[in-house]
């Protein structure tokens, strides 16, 4: 019964997202200059998606729809919540900028489109569906990166992003086609069945290409090089949003494809991902040490964090499978709050590391929030990043695989390597004198400030929510 009423409920967050997307677009066209209305609608849209996903989550709604290609379960809903939450805060944060840039409607529509694509993406259980939804969230991302036409870096970053993104999509599609050709199905459970049969080199090649394609999308080494340029070029709020919401959704569907599509091949892909994870951590953290531009630094840091998440992927074996899924989920939430916040602070203070100097004198509240984000990104308890890393290490420790132990060891070393650059900011803020007498002005939009402080609060009180969150993740993570 592909078109039952239940299927409509299953699509509720996406339907709401699409409706608001169109409404925002129309209102923007017919009421030009009414940024407040458009912004309010966009925020309401993200909030409504969040509410719908919450309601479905709370009522335990689950099932597979449309011939098994679309799945609604706790895991998918959890990531929809996360994406919608990030979109809401981004919309709130970006209104002031979008108003001054003059294209508020377009900007908001693009953010809502990315959100729409990402919420669809996490429910896909069919390889072609995965591909379509992934493109649906990626193509608006290109436009977001290129959005700031007044800056040359914006076009440059977007160009690099589009070209590498197109290559990644082709590689991904090629992998999907190979898998489809050898297994005769694009549905993940069917692919898994065929995989558990005789070994097929073509299918394995397909799997590896698929992994490479996803590695591009989540900016894992050696496919990460677009990240710093894209995040530096994009408008700050767009960089903030892109570094968390679509990335976490991609991680979610990546994990689903691997665990549902190729559980029998776990020894292969966990090994491949362990190596990728190790390389990614260092290719993220080492260049980050040299950056003087905070946005580029945070971009490299986000590469490193992809490596940490992939460590949990590599731990999906032995008795640690449930913990590994849990780790990805908890890490995603922890990372979302701290990274989004850090990027938004950069939007207020400025891109140059020097502009953070002496911030505690001029803007103590902002400095406190940034301090929380930086310490959380390092992974210092009791902040959010610590719990993410804790679960990753827990799952790695339970995996019983030597390669995963090595990956966890690399995570530990890499975390320590990352301290100097995060603390370079902290040191500048707390211990250095302001560079110029010109203080960071308090002129930023209230929404941006509100979003930053909300995220800092969430990052800080993450430990309160960790018990329920882990229970939720445990229940939802039974893939």
């Amino acid at each position: 019964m592909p078109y039952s009423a239940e299927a409509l409920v299953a699509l509720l967050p996406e339907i709401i997202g699409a409706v608001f997307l169109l409404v925002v677009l129309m209102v923007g066209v017919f009421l030009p200059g009414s940024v407040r209305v458009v912004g309010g609608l966009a925020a309401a849209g993200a909030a409504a998606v969040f509410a719908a996903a919450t309601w479905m989550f709370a009522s335990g709604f689950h099932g597979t729809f449309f011939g098994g290609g679309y799945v609604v379960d706790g895991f998918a809903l959890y990531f929809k919540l996360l994406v919608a939450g990030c979109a809401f805060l981004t919309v709130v944060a970006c209104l002031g900028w979008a108003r001054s840039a003059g294209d508020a409607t377009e900007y908001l529509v693009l953010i809502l489109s990315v959100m729409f694509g990402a919420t669809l993406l996490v429910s896909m259980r069919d390889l072609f569906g995965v591909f379509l939804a992934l493109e649906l969230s990626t193509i608006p991302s290109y436009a977001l990166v290129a959005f700031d036409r007044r800056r040359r870096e914006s076009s440059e970053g977007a160009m690099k992003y589009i070209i590498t993104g197109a290559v990644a999509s082709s590689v991904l599609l090629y992998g999907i086609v190979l898998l489809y050709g050898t297994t005769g199905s694009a549905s993940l459970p069917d692919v898994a069945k065929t995989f558990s049969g005789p070994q097929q080199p073509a299918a394995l090649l397909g799997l590896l290409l698929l992994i490479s394609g996803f590695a591009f999308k989540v900016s894992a080494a050696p496919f990460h090089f677009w990240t710093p340029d894209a995040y530096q070029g994009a408008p700050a709020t767009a960089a903030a949003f892109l570094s968390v919401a679509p990335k976490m959704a991609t991680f979610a569907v990546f994990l689903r494809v691997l665990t549902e599509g190729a559980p029998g091949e776990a020894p292969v892909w966990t090994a491949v991902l362990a190596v990728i994870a190790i390389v990614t951590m260092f290719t993220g953290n080492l260049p980050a040490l040299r950056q003087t531009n905070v946005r580029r630094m945070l971009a490299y840091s986000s590469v490193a964090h992809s490596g940490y998440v992939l460590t949990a992927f590599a731990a999906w074996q032995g008795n640690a499978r449930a913990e590994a899924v849990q780790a990805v989920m908890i890490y995603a939430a922890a990372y979302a709050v701290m990274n989004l916040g850090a990027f938004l602070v950069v939007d207020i203070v400025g891109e140059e590391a020097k502009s953070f100097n002496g911030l505690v004198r001029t803007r103590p509240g902002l400095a406190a929030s940034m301090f929380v984000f930086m310490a959380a990104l390092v992974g210092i308890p009791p902040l959010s990043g610590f719990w993410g890393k804790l679960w990753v290490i827990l799952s790695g420790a339970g995996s019983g695989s030597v390669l995963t132990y090595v990956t966890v060891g690399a995570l530990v070393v890499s975390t320590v390597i990352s301290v100097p650059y995060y603390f370079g900011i902290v040191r500048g803020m707390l211990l250095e004198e302001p560079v110029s007498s010109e203080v960071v002005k308090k002129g930023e939009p209230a929404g941006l400030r509100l979003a930053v402080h909300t995220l800092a609060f969430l990052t800080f009180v993450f430990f309160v929510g960790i018990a329920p969150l882990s229970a939720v993740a445990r229940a939802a993570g039974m893939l």
Partner: protein
Amino acid sequence: MITTVTIFIPLLGALLMLLLPKEFEERRVRAIAAAVAAVPLALALYVYFVYRHDLGAPALTQNVTWVSSLNIGYRVGLDGIGFGMFLLTALLTLIAVVAAWDVRRNLRQYFALLFVAEVGMLGVFAAQDLVLFYVFFELTLLPMYLLVGAWGDENRRAAAIKFFLYTFLGSTIMLAGFLAFGILAGSFSFSALEGGGGLSRAAQVAVAAPIVLGLLIKVPAVPLHGWLLDVYLSSPTSTNVVLSGILPKLGTYGLLRVAIPLLPQGVHPFLPYIAILAVVNILYGAFVGFMQPDLKALVSYSSLATLGFILLGASAVNTVGYNGAVLQQFTHGLYSALLFVVVGIFQARTGTREISELGGLVGRMPWAASIFAIGSLAAMGLPGLAVFSSEFMTLLGGYDAHPVQAILAALGIVTGAFYFLYMLARVIFGPIKNPAYEAIQDATPLEMTAIFPLAALLVLIGFFPGLLVVVQHHAVQSMLTVIGGG
């Protein structure tokens, strides 16, 4: 409940400090901070007088499950092994507040950070859960980084980040070990993990290796001590009190309360090497300390040497050695805090820490110089002062388990005595080398309140070590019974 209250009262104090109006005069801020710091001390003393005989097993506990699927909990309690340090933390924080006279800028923020660090330190000594232990352990890191980095001398920023990197590396390695241990054993509660938590010998060794390594960096054990000197030298006096008096004990306490009791078989193969590291610490500290031209550096290295005896006693894992190690944690804290404060006073008066430039101070500042002499004699291990009994116990216990190492360690006492006496002869006695010192004043009443109690305790515990042994020996005994030592 009283445990939790004691741990978190400083946090309220930190908030209070930040909320104090800016126009409050300095003296009132200091007085309020001292009052705040006195509360945990009063509570800890109350526990001492009421419960000191009943700390064989964790008492005054509180158990709240935090993450049920992994059996992580907020579990705190006071037992004999940790209580001495719990008490000392409260005491030394108060001393540090009093001794903060060289902190002039941003006083409220300084005290707030000190109190946050106190929460972490008290928490470590009361934690009964591995994850909670780690959280408290790490909670001390950021405040200490900022205390050194913002209020230290001109080299402070490099020193602060060095300190942070070393200790963060250590604690992260330790965390990996903790998590592997907890997940293999199915619980993070100390009580469930006692004696190995059901892990095989090989698994215990694999888990113990990172934990022991991480803790040794924290102590620090030579050759993992690269951060020590820069940080000690750069810190303001009152930070030194905590930095040398309490923080190294997070490492030694981790060995005494976590690594050895919870992973007895895992730590066992490492014990002879820990004893060797102990000897290296003692001899290295003594020889390098002897060559320091800077008084504060000399005290820092002597502190390193004394920490070696804690490691020696711990590595013995027998009644005498273990009791000595637990006691030495306390006595080391007393004397090193005392010496750092007096060095700070000397520096404030004379403007220098160079041993060669000082001289004849006893004539000008008899009180401060005498108390400095008491601290130095205690550091040498002179009988009648606190360090003697604990050091002697670690040597006795150490001799039983690792005779060669213990004999070498005893050499360290001789060296230590030599260079401390030599230093005293040059700094306190002898002629006054600089005519400007003729006019310097003795310690003020405020300064005396910081150092006199420490000196008095050194003498008191020197004559009556039983005052502290009564707290700890039941706990040590029951722990050794569980792990089959003694």
